[in-house]
């Protein structure tokens, strides 16, 4: 579980540091995986299958989230190539 905590920290730092939207996305995936790891470890420790069911749902939602997020990234980068996360601040009205 400490490994999961450290992985979550790495993911969080990655989201904050990197400017490439794709890599920020990968870091979000890492954070989700850290949470999954914690769920499975606790499921083993507490002897409760519900933790593993939750991980299943997290996996499904993560897949959907990746699909939508990558669609958005493709749409943005097609409009303005080489965009970073900072450039999206032009969205403000």
């Amino acid at each position: 579980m400490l490994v999961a905590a450290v992985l979550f920290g790495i993911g969080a730092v990655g989201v904050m540091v990197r400017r490439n939207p794709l890599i920020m996305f990968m870091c979000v995936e890492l954070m989700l995986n850290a949470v999954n790891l914690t769920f499975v470890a606790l499921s083993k420790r507490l002897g409760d299958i519900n933790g593993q069911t939750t991980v299943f749902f997290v996996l499904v939602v993560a897949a959907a989230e990746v699909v939508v997020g990558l669609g958005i990234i493709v749409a943005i980068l097609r409009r303005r190539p080489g965009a970073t996360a900072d450039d999206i601040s032009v969205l403000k009205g």
Partner: protein
Amino acid sequence: MMETIVFVISAAMVLGGGLGVVLRSHPVHAALSMVLALFGVAVMFVSQEAHFLAAVQVIVYAGAIVVLFLFVIMLLGVDAADNLRIEPIKVQRPLAAIAGIGIVGLVSAAIIAARDDLRVRGAGLQIPSETGDGDANIKQLSENLFRDHIVAFEVTSVLLVVAVVGTVLLARRPGKGGAARQRGEQIEEPVAP
């Protein structure tokens, strides 16, 4: 003993992969580092007797999601390495480091403090190596999923359909005379090979 060795190796895989995602400047390298981290997580799932989830992890994450990432990298041609030396916002990295160390410290402290409270409360896992039934984990998980959480399961199917439709709408390239062109916006045409 064996468990410790497996744990150490998979932990090294997970952490090395995670650091690789953050530190490698090339997006393709970062994606491959993510494969390493995800496989490490899958190994940990196996070592904790969550066999079904390990299989799903490899198929969905290491298979589908990373391939999707690589496809997008290839499609957009953003495979130029970005320069990590440039700092767009000056105070960002120290702040991020402080926040990251703080998060890790707080969560670790919470885990260590709560360690004594972690006692078996549920009905108990059926562990394949103990019951001698190789499918015990899958059976128990499916019973839990399809008996207790059937509504949530159906809702996830709706979520997936909505995600697919929404992505198709988002990523669709407007055709000739499409709505975006009528608004006079500039659309890059694909270069013919």
